[in-house]
């Protein structure tokens, strides 16, 4: 090649380069249009550039924004997809697409983008939203998987921790649930949602024989609890499990701890001490409250009277009732006290306390009404009220009074007849069956055997609370 050609080529190249440098930068041009509010020109230019093959991300994004501005929604979506083709991990574009689908309420596109962002964006809000959505839809497998993903990213909010553990437990993945729980558990004060989960973990640990860990964790939870009210459900579940496993010591231990922090929990502790047959402990818990001038609510007062009465401290119950004010407690509380007084044959005091129960309320407490009628010598009225009580509905605390009345008002055959109508004696309280077994022992051998079969080794059980009473159910 001749040197002249080289010169020409070089000159041309220089000219082209200079021309290129002198031409306005399209980005600057677009920016200027946008600054002036000349969207139409900006749109025209970006559209032309992209159609001409320009794939500069800045130009593509500006085009998309302009398409959105004028409402060319299909084109907007296509441009965003085009950007993602070359840059699939561009989170900003995924966010734009997510907002686009959300604004247009397009479910499929929205969830596709949300899923991507939940898994790839450092911003946890996407993961949180997806978890919430899946939970709302009842898609628990996906929720569990996403909660695990959240757990892997860092500290879980309390509500997620509870959900993950409860879902894993429900699915039978106890080991995994425990593993997550151990990683996430802290001693912080917990609310109503967290305590049931803690209780389930406590149950699990007991069932796996890891009593020490159960007690240690529970101890920490109680120590750090600030608000006492959310504890009731959790402790009830925990205490029931202890009862199942015959671990009175754990109940006693935890009771002491919780009462020290939250005196109002004395009532719950008392009810479990009662189930364990430890009446002295019940009395100690209750007397401590009185000694500490505990501010009893009406509900507390009723529980106090009921517990005192049930453990046989009738004087204590009456004294408390009088000092608190009989007009402030419910008719139920007074009637229950009367039932216990009658069962203990304290008819004179019962008559006195009976004045606190309005006459028109008596029909709602037929055992009490029957007893009063009998005291007045009105046998037919006593009979009438007694018959209002269906045997299946006699509660444990009513057993004594019911049997007293039954023996006074019914013949032996009639009394046995009432029981023979009950096909499944397991529906009746054990105290009642125990009384009945005593009664029927020398009267009807086959019926006696039927009762014994139900009672099994628990007979005679008078005065002893069954360890497994009221599993999970609170009245």
């Amino acid at each position, binding site marked *: 090649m001749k040197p002249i050609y080289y010169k020409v080529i070089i000159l041309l190249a220089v000219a082209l380069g200079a021309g290129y440098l002198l031409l306005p930068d399209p980005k600057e041009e677009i920016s200027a249009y946008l600054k002036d509010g000349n969207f139409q020109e900006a749109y025209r230019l970006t559209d032309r550039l992209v159609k001409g093959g320009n794939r500069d991300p800045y130009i593509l994004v500006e085009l998309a924004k302009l398409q959105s501005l004028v409402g060319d929604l299909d084109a907007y979506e296509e441009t965003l997809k085009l950007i993602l083709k070359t840059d699939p991990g561009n989170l900003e574009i995924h966010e734009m697409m997510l907002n686009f689908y959300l604004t247009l309420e397009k479910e499929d596109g929205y969830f596709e983008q949300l899923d991507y962002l939940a898994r790839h964006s450092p911003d946890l809000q996407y993961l949180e939203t997806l978890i919430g959505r899946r939970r709302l839809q009842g898609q628990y497998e996906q929720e569990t998987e996403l909660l695990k993903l959240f757990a892997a990213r860092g500290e879980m909010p309390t509500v997620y921790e509870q959900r993950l553990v409860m879902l894993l437990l429900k699915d039978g993945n106890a080991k995994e649930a425990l593993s997550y729980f151990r990683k996430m558990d802290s001693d912080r004060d917990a609310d109503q949602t967290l305590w049931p989960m803690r209780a389930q973990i406590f149950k699990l640990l007991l069932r796996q024989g890891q009593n020490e860990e159960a007690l240690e964790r529970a101890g920490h939870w109680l120590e750090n609890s600030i608000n006492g009210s959310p504890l009731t459900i959790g402790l009830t579940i925990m205490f029931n499990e202890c009862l199942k496993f015959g671990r009175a010591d754990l109940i006693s231990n935890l009771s002491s701890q919780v009462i020290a922090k939250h005196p109002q929990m004395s009532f719950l502790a008392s009810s479990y001490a009662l189930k364990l047959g430890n009446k002295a402990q019940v009395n100690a818990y209750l007397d401590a409250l009185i000694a500490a001038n505990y501010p009893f609510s009406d509900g507390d007062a009723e529980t106090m009277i009921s517990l005192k009465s049930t453990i046989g401290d009738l004087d204590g119950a009456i004294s408390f009732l009088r000092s608190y004010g009989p007009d402030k407690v419910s008719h139920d509380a007074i009637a229950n006290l009367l039932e216990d007084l009658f069962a203990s044959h304290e008819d004179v005091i019962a008559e006195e306390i009976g004045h606190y129960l309005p006459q028109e*309320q008596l029909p709602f407490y037929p055992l009490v009404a029957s007893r009063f009628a009998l005291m007045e010598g009105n046998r037919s009225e006593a009979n009438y009220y007694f018959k209002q009580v269906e045997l299946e509905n006699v509660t444990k605390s009513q057993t004594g009074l019911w049997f007293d009345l039954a023996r006074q008002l019914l013949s032996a055959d009639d009394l046995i007849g009432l029981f023979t109508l009950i096909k499944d004696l397991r529906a009746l309280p054990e105290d009642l069956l125990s009384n009945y077994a005593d009664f029927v022992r020398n009267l009807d051998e086959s019926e006696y055997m039927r009762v014994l079969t139900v009672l099994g080794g628990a007979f005679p059980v008078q005065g002893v609370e069954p360890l497994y009473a009221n599993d999970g*159910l609170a009245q």
Partner: protein
Amino acid sequence: MREVVLQALVLFIRVTVIVAGMAGSCFAQSSIAPSAKAERFEPFVKRTVLALYDSRDEKEPVDTNIHAYLEMPLNYLGYEVDYHDIQQGLPSVDEMRDKKAVVTWFHRSLVNWKDYLIWAEECIRGGTQFVVFSQVGGIDSQESKKLTNRFLAQLGLKNHFSFLFDTSDAGYEVIDRKIYAFEREPFRVLPNFDYFEAISPETRIHLSVHFADQTGLKQSALITTNANGAFVHSGYEFDYEASVNLMQWLLNPFELFETVLGRHAFPIPDTTTLYGNRIYFSHVDGDGWNNVSFMEKYKKDRVFSSKVMLEELIKPYPGLPVSIGLVTGDFDKAIGGTDDGLEIAREILAQPQVEVASHTHTHPFDWNFFENYDREKELALLKKKNEESSSAPTGVIGSVETILNRISPDVKTDNYILDGLKGALRAYLRFPFDLDTEIKGSLDFATQQAPKGKKAEILFWSGNTRPFEAAIRASRLAGVRNLNGGDSRYDLSNPSVIYVPALSRVIGDQRQIYAAASNEETFTNNWKGPFYGFAALEETLKNTEFPRRLKPFNVYYHSFSGERANAIKAIQTHLDLARDGPYFPLTASHYAAIADSFFEARIEKLGSMRWAIHDRDFLQTLRFDHADELGVDWLNSKGVIGQNRHAGSLYVALDASVAVPVLAIMKRDDANQVVASVPFLESSRWEVRNVNHSDCDTGECKLTFEANGFGRGEMLWKGLPKGCYRVVAHWSEGAFDQQISVGEDHLLSVTLPFASQRTVSVEIHSLLKPDRAMPAREKVAG
């Protein structure tokens, strides 16, 4: 004869004594008219359900769960809901007389629990059904427990008053998927529950859970029905997910109510459909009337958004009615308005398809404040707001103004304008609030801007759309319908039928009709953008069409949409759909009138499948659901002109010219045999009335009727014998003549030309052979 008179006298005295002496007792009601007798003496179908609520927890009916979640399904099934506050005592005999059922959703024990439980049991014994959601109402006492269980026994249940704290070992026993798992799957981890035992073989269990206690395995019935009603346990009816602030039903309320109240008990007055087509209407709140548009095409000339609306959304759609609600204060200089936009208002209202409406005078935002109006308080708030706004950065104020701004920037300096500011009570505060100016004054002003012969027909509620009783009454006294509120949506952001509201809201003795869809504000983040968001109305439109047509197609927007190109485009998409699709276009006041008529209509039962419809006024559609096997019994019906099917429902069209039509239905096989020779309307975009036809089985088949409506009169007739027909139509300014052939499908499709809403007389008659003199295509004159 003497005996009859004597018996009547005894009955009269009995009734008088019972009514006078036992007000408040359902027993009295049942003594007078036990259900069986009621059928004989009161042949009108009972379509009212009484909602009892406790104002300690839910202040007004609009605040109740029943209004929020149950009233829409009940309306859909044809029932009106009356509200009664249990704090005001128990409903009287009069209130119970026409009630089909009572529905309760108490959140705690009632103060008058004893009276209530006794009354409720008596009501059930007297034939009133009870649907109990959540708490029954009793307290924790032996007496209450007994009364509760006496009441529940009527529903086939017993409450053991045992609360299961630990549900970890509990599981589902029965899941009736027809009634349960409606919008989502059941809970994986069960919420706590009480032990409710089904005590009767008649109790149908739709959801139950099993659990174990010391006496063995138990089953708690959480959702049940029987002949006396239903029970729905708290916590199992729907789910609220706090992290996304969204709700979904677990229970299917439509199926529950249909199971309890009965299927095909009566033809359901329908407010979604006319002449076989889904109703379409559009209305505009005049907010932002004088705002300058940002659109490229208009911004240079500082064109108002209202003018853009006229050019882009009204003029190009002459066949689609639109009701324009002016905020008349916008034109009142004395309070800070401007008359710049008045000419535009006049031009818009002069368009033939535009209905005149008011969107109040000063645009109240918080209606509650004005019920017991205190000017001093208002001025104090105004002062506070002005201080806040003057200290706020310009940018913020600017953006706030944009939200609802209808005032040009020049007059914004007026200290008596609080437009768009968060917490503002109304837009124009120059003068004290005056209800008459707000309602009648604004309607009169709107009428004055319209051409002669047109007047304001409807008022659109502003702001929080919770007008007080006197305000609604004022609109009724002014002789107009009222609309707005409800914010109906059913889409990704509102993923449940829960977000579709009832037909109306009742306050005192007044009724506010809700709009049938939400407006562009809720789709655009309160007009902060993206402004194309209103395009998403399409999703709500689809979801309220299938599997049930729950609402009409309502395009509801504000004048300020004219500011943005993409907002205009979104609305145009909906208008295109309405113009080209199978809809029945009408005005907003017509829709509100239909909704009002829903509550007025009375249905008289004439036989097991035959009813007379009284007082239906503007309501011309009756519906049967699950009606694949049902059809109109044309020979035993009167004033019934059409039928159409959608999503398993049968929609029956009535002739507006017949005062008391009679509808008879029959099994479809039988009906099909009949329809072959009876012409009936399948669908129409126009109202069709005064329909008469000859016996098409013999001789010439001739059909005459009158029709009118917006746009083109597309209609489809069915049941015409095969052959050639001539369609001739006349109206005041024109005529139409066309030959159409009917084939094996017995369908005759005709489109009457644009007739500017004039009444058109139409005759369709069969030809022995095609008239050669007539061209096959239509001939239009005028």
